[in-house]
């Protein structure tokens, strides 16, 4: 491979990344332009073609994301998310700590199977409602919801976009995630919940002025389309069942998600224009364009150069290497989007695997780092940005300083727990 190709493809890729991280231009626009530039440069220098670019796109990732997006788009208007939040409020009887655990728990479970962002977008407004009628600050609940949904999302194949990417690239099944990621995430999640309760103990100790008001909220009234909600939940349940089985049935998770979306669409027959409008096309396009860019890096030989550098430093033990990956990826994810980081690291880990290194454990290190790192700063994860921008329209905005005080300790704790468990679990590998 010509050094010229390596240099130019690297410039295109890192130039695009820099522009994405500067947030001066929309990330999807940058990615589209960057991917086209990569193909043009590749054609001129002869290292990349249109066919190779199409091949570089991981349609399994895109299909899985799109299928789940359609299901969520259909579930959203039924009021199911609001129903759960109101139910949590009633069950808590207005006791702050109970409400804290219940809302955090619901958000976590939902975001293990559905998109974090949608979950937070739909739960956060009701959270503000509940805390206002209780007469307590919404801040602890909102911060905890974002952080716990980021943490919980790391547990499953479908919980978080980086997991979808890693699962697809490494051929990891839904059950692989349940065996390898879920236990570590559960312990880290419990640690995060306890730490958050401690960090917010002053706010949570304040007694609500009107705890009886939440008992007058009627969950059934928030569920404005109970029939539709029931249908979609049945389909979603079926999809989760097939996720458990997809590996033994030899079907891709994307087929499960898209087939579930098809069944739900047929059964409910909603206004398709409205549903498709809610699919986050900009996210799908962003992913597709990033795949094309990384494909260019791969074809130019830039990635094998990096792989070579890494494998030369293989003097360090694999476990230590994994722990390092957790912390480095987490640190990067705290300040920038974890999707481009994951997409860029996947071919490198793959390449290391081809040199004979056992990279099985490294995939889990990548999952944990990308999943937990986003908690560190207010811009670390989209869920954080969502609750922050929502709270900006209230009397009590979440500031960057607040997040550093509450989120950063959680990120450090969860990464520490994950590192210890990772080292213990993979010591013998």
């Amino acid at each position: 491979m010509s050094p010229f190709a390596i240099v130019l493809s690297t410039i295109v890729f890192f130039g695009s990344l820099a522009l994405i991280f500067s947030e001066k231009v929309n990330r999807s626009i940058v990615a589209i332009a960057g991917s086209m530039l990569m193909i043009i440069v590749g054609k001129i220098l002869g290292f990349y073609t249109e066919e190779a670019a199409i091949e570089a796109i991981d349609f399994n990732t895109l299909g899985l994301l799109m299928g789940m997006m359609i299901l969520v788009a259909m579930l959203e208007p039924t009021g199911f998310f609001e129903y759960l939040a109101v139910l949590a409020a009633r069950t808590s009887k207005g006791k702050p700590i109970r409400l804290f655990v219940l809302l955090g728990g619901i958000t976590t479970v939902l975001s293990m199977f559905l998109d974090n962002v949608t979950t937070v977008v739909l739960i956060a407004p009701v959270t503000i409602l509940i805390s206002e009628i209780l007469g307590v600050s919404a801040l602890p609940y909102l911060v905890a919801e974002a952080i716990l949904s980021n943490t919980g999302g790391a547990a499953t194949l479908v919980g978080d976009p980086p997991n979808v990417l890693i699962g697809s690239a490494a051929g990891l099944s839904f059950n692989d995630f349940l065996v390898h990621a879920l236990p570590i995430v559960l312990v880290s999640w419990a640690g995060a919940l306890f730490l958050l309760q401690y960090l917010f103990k002053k706010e949570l100790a304040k007694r609500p002025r009107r705890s009886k008001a939440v008992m007058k909220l009627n969950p059934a009234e928030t569920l404005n389309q109970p029939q539709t909600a029931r249908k979609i939940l049945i389909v979603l349940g079926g999809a989760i069942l097939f996720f458990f089985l997809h590996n033994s049935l030899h079907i891709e998770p994307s087929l499960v998600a898209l087939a579930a979306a098809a069944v739900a669409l047929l059964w409910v027959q909603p206004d398709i224009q409205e549903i498709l409008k809610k699919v986050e096309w900009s996210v799908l396009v962003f992913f597709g364009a990033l795949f094309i860019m990384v494909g260019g890096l791969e074809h130019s030989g830039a990635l094998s150069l990096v792989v070579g550098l890494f494998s030369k430093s293989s003097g360090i033990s694999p476990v230590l290497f994994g722990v390092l990956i957790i912390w480095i990826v987490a640190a990067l994810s705290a300040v920038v989007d974890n999707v481009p980081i994951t997409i860029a690291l996947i071919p490198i880990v793959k390449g290391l695997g081809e040199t004979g290194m056992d990279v099985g454990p490294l995939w889990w290190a990548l999952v944990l780092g990308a999943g937990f790192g986003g908690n560190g700063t207010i811009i670390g994860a989209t869920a954080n940005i969502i609750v922050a921008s929502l709270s900006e329209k209230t009397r009590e905005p979440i500031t960057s300083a607040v997040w550093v005080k509450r989120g950063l300790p959680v990120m450090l704790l969860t990464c520490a727990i994950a590192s210890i468990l990772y080292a213990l679990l993979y010591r013998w590998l």
Partner: protein
Amino acid sequence: MDIKSCMKRNVFYINPKTTIHEAAEILVKHHIGLLPVVDNEGIPIGVIGMRDLLKLELPDFVNFVADVDFVHDFGAVEDTRPPAKTLQKTIKSLMRPVITAEEDCGLLRAYALMLQQNLHDIPVVSKEGKLIGIASRVDVGSAILSAWGKAE
């Protein structure tokens, strides 16, 4: 017919240095919904409505939840008052841009303006731009409807 013929000439107004609390007291005392804010020359530079003041007390969730019908008890927000510090701020910090009608503005034009801009009252100004009156939707609407009997 123009708006001058149906407007109220006895118009209450304030200046930008009036505090939010004082503005609220004037609205309550005269049982009105809108106060034009005028400068030293009597030219309107903004308005403050009852809804602007009520917004200070309205809970945040009303902006986020499309339908509040399922909230049967607003609980703690029912007895929340805006902080005293907010009430002592001047009206300049809260007032909205003013939309006025000139005294010779036709009634249908005035009504359409109010409908489109979602105004319940419209301040009326003289040719020199000075505040001379105020007309409500009912003032303008009644004036329009009263002409029906005289048709043909």
